[in-house]
């Protein structure tokens, strides 16, 4: 089994610098400092690493987009993990905070950044304390601060806690929040690489993405690129939850059949029930029916199947569930988390929730299913930021793939209420 991020994850006291160093931790720094920063960017490009937060944008390319000769520049680590189904970054932060620090140092060196922030979800107060302790240890060992390991490179890393807003995982909303504002998304362009934090060039990467970088520097980009598929390189942390016997975070090689993740790694469906549906990449991606369970788990294959790899959260639903219930619960989330800045998202999420709730509670009418399709069409690609598209995913895909669930529920409730 190829393990990069989770290789030592269950090693006792891995969160301490002593144990982390014994596993080869921070070895990448000397290798990196022996090279020019631009070479590190090229290495990450050559590795084929794509952002693990959800969008899958090539990481090295993102780094190379930073506005030239504009300083200071900033790195913001996105640790605002809040998407239903997703819980992988939390495990990395809790058990292996130094891996993230090492990744942040490498990114900062590559991009000539001297100040970095780790924007943590507000609810992760305990993880913030673990991370701050790890920062202290790294400063004491000379991995952070002035003239790191005699390289002449300086870097400070700070923590910044959010306060419970899913939208702050969107990069421009994260910046507004970090600047002391409401977490509403910004118009793009300009992209953060040109005008990000404090209107300066800024790199924003997910926790998992940054945690891969030490491996790339240590082992070389070719070794990383040799893992996975042609266009989806490396491994991916997958949070498996829902109706499986062994829920958990698993590191899988890109291209692994989804069936293998559900039935072998996660132990199969609870009570040996039948698989009905699965959401492969967190609540913001379309759900798929059981007959697509052999789809390889990688960016391209999942896209071809009509969904996305997203943040890598595999939510498993068995045959006892009517998916209208799942669509309603997820829509409730998006209604709650819509920032209210743009009308299609603010009004659309509420309207969808109202209709789904009516169907669920026996006040629905068959023609409302078409109304839901219509609302989805009027939200898709028409919202200010991707939250609107994310909100559409569970509703549109549940109607497209499981329309019979809507019909069955409407009939059942009509018979019950006598409507």
């Amino acid at each position, binding site marked *: 089994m190829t393990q990069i991020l989770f290789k030592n994850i269950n090693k006792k006291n891995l969160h301490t610098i002593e144990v982390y160093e014994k596993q080869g931790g921070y070895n990448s720094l000397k290798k990196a400092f022996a090279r020019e920063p631009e070479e590190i960017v090229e290495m990450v490009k050559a590795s084929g690493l794509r952002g693990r937060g959800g969008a899958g944008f090539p990481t090295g390319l993102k780094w190379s987009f930073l506005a030239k000769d504009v300083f200071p520049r900033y790195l913001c680590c996105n640790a605002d993990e809040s998407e*239903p189904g997703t819980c992988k970054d939390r495990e990395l932060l809790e058990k292996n905070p130094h891996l993230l620090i090492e990744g942040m140092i490498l990114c900062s060196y590559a991009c000539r950044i001297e100040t970095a922030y780790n924007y943590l979800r507000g*609810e992760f107060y305990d993880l913030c304390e673990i991370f701050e302790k790890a920062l202290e240890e790294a400063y004491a060992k000379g991995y952070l601060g002035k003239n790191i390991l005699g390289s002449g490179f300086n870097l400070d890393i700070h923590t910044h806690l959010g*306060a419970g807003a899913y939208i702050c995982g969107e990069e421009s909303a994260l910046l507004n929040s970090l600047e002391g504002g*409401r977490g509403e998304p910004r118009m793009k362009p300009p992209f953060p690489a040109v005008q990000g934090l404090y209107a300066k060039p800024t790199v924003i990467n997910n926790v998992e993405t940054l945690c891969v970088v030490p491996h790339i520097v240590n082992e070389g980009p070719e070794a990383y690129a040799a893992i996975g598929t042609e266009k989806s390189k490396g491994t991916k942390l997958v949070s498996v939850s829902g109706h499986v016997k062994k829920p958990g975070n698993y590191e899988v090689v890109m291209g692994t059949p989804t069936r293998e993740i559900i039935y072998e790694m996660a132990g199969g469906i609870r009570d040996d029930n039948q698989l009905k549906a699965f959401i492969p990449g967190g609540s913001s991606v379309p759900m798929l029916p059981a007959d697509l369970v052999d789809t390889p788990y990688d960016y391209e294959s999942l896209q071809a199947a009509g969904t996305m790899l997203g943040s890598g959260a595999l*939510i498993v639903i068995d045959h006892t569930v009517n998916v209208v219930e799942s669509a309603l619960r997820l829509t409730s989330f998006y209604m709650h988390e819509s920032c209210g800045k743009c009308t299609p998202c603010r009004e659309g999420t509420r309207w969808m929730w109202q209709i789904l709730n009516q169907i669920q509670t026996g006040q629905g009418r068959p023609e409302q299913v078409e109304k839901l399709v219509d609302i989805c069409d009027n939200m898709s690609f028409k919202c200010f930021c991707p939250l609107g598209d994310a909100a559409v995913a569970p509703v549109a895909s549940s109607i497209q793939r499981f329309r019979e669930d809507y019909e069955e529920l409407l009939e059942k409730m009509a018979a019950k209420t006598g409507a």
Partner: protein
Amino acid sequence: MFEFSKEAEEKIEKILAKYPPEHKRSALLPLLTLTQRQEKYISPDAMREIGRRLDLSPAYVQSVCSFYTMYSFQPVGKYMILFCVNISCQLNGCDALLEHTAKKLNIKVGETTSDKKFTLHREECLAACAGAPMMRINDTFYENLTPKKIDQILDSLD
């Protein structure tokens, strides 16, 4: 009248040092969080005091504060229970467990017990989906809940 504690004042200095002096507004969320941890909620007085320190109007502080769901504007119980209700927890029976918790505490969701010990809220996913169903009490995550486990946890809190 709101005042930061001595311990909080030391933390404020460290917080302000994280950001460029011309961008001290960045300290707004950290100061709000510090206030909430000290007082268990954020009062209009506290908002004025934070605004004074960061050169922000009370209205601005309130407009930011009200955006974020973690901040309370009324006093809450000693133990804030956030019960996750989103999909992974729902698939694992959280609705019945939340009902069980509310019944045990003899309150409705969103309320505080009369002895001011517990406040119970729904939460939209706490990134612990592999341990569903789960809840967070103050800073601690409790996973793989059952009615019995919930009873034990609540009974063990002073």
